[in-house]
């Protein structure tokens, strides 16, 4: 039995068909599904998010011995739409992602580097949600900073290169909703 089964069996959300209709349809319908949420009126700015992401990643690289060379990943660095809920058209916030390839060591060193990154992130009090293949040459780590604001990851690209990345929470580029929204 999987965790999901356990949850389903122990905590079936609705026990009758009418209740399901009421619970599943009415609350969502009442919110209109497109803008029923309350969006924050103040966030960090896009510039501040880039600065913080850079700080997280450069501090991480500094904790690795020998220190790797950082190369910006154009593929994984962008400012994209907030993906919290596509049906909420009122939410025009964005998310900032920065990522760097870690270069300057052989693929056989991936496990050692990943373990150093994991130790550093744990030392910083970051929440680690998942680690994979930490003793192999394709390790992966997923987590979030201690404040929970930025998500962080280490993973291995298709060519075997380790990559570290950070993504901001959803934010208004100028820190406040655009006029008229």
């Amino acid at each position: 039995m999987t965790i999901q089964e356990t949850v389903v069996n122990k905590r079936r959300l609705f026990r009758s068909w009418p209740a399901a209709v009421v619970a599943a349809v009415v609350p969502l319908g009442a919110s209109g599904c497109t803008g029923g949420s309350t969006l924050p009126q103040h966030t960090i700015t896009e510039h501040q998010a880039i600065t913080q992401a850079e700080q997280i990643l450069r501090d991480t690289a500094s904790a690795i011995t020998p220190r790797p060379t950082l190369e910006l990943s154009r593929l994984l660095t962008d400012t994209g739409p907030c993906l919290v809920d596509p049906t909420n058209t009122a939410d025009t916030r964005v998310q900032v992602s920065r990522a760097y390839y870690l270069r300057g060591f052989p693929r056989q060193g991936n496990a050692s580097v990943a373990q150093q990154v994991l130790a550093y992130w744990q030392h910083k009090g970051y929440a680690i949600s998942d680690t994979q293949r930490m003793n192999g040459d394709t390790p992966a780590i997923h987590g979030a900073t201690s404040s929970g604001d930025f998500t962080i990851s280490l993973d291995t690209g298709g060519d075997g290169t380790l990559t570290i990345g950070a993504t901001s929470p959803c934010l208004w580029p100028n820190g406040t909703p655009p006029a008229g929204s």
Partner: protein
Amino acid sequence: MNASQQQRFIHEFPAQIGWLNGLPATARDQANRMVLAQEKASLQAQLASLQGSEPRNPGGGPVPDPMPGPSVAVARIEAKLAEISAVETGLSNAAAVAGGRNVFLLGFDTNGNGHAIVAVGNPDTATNTVTYVPGLGSKTTGAVGDVGRATALWQQATHVAPPGTTVSSIYWLGYNAPQLGLDQGLHNLDVTSTADAVAGGQALSQFQGGLQAAHQPGMPSHTVVLGHSYGSLVVGEAAAHSGLHPGDIIVVGSPGVGVNNVSQLGLPAGHVWAGANIYDPVPMLPPSDPVNALSDPNAAHFGTNPATTAFGGKVFDATTDPGRSFSGIDISAHSAYWDPRSSSLSNMAYIVDGQYGNVSQQMPVPTPAPGPQPTPGPAAP
């Protein structure tokens, strides 16, 4: 047909060419962008006319008569322009990431709540192609976020793909997704029915057949279909009844795929994958047939929950952004499967690339706190 003849057909029949399955992505893209531009210009001209400005119809013909009730007509036109704007923004956002020549508008119209198909990466040449089918509440006004999801998966799948392989990630809103809202009346119950999924499944299967036909011969092609929420039922209907046979099926936040066992989908058990965040209430919705609730302890709303071992497929770790800090059942968890830097997004990318050995299985996570009341929120199943 030579290039000149192709161009003539595209210019004379863009709406038909744009939706014609089996044509090259570049031809469909050209046709659909023409349709979008023409529709936008026409609507802007109608709006200007209604608002008392000097109407200008770029086509040179007469400006259509305004509909009765100017305020209603203005609202209708503005809503259509908002749909177009969302698709345009989705296209430009994707182009900023993948490159302008690497984003294709494979379908577009403003009928009903609108329809759009956007490919990030050329599906005709891609080694791995994933088609994302959104669910309840989806309409083209949500194209910014939905194309954003497709783009996020393209980025991650491209990142972990071996050198020399390419990815196409497609947002497919080629069906009428059920809607909720105070203006929907009895249509609010559409989400409890399979009718939209049956029709959508047929269209999806035809689209996938077109992708296969248009793919360059001799090049490897691995296809994946990804259904979210009610979109997973569309995928299930397509596989069970409409001849859809991709390399892999992924469903996330699924209320069921319309069948009780993976064998009914026509794919090997190892190629049907389900992800379900334990805080997501949608997989826990009760069966549409109350009798199933008694006979099948793993029943979801539409058949057996695909994220259970009873279903017989694979269940992957769908842990989402740890920063979200869900403390109990939360409808927001239903929209979290594409969270940046999450295990969920990472695992979907591995499946898209056929790197099955890297897919992590469902990990133990804390049981939600007592008080299983859903948190009303804006996210739609």
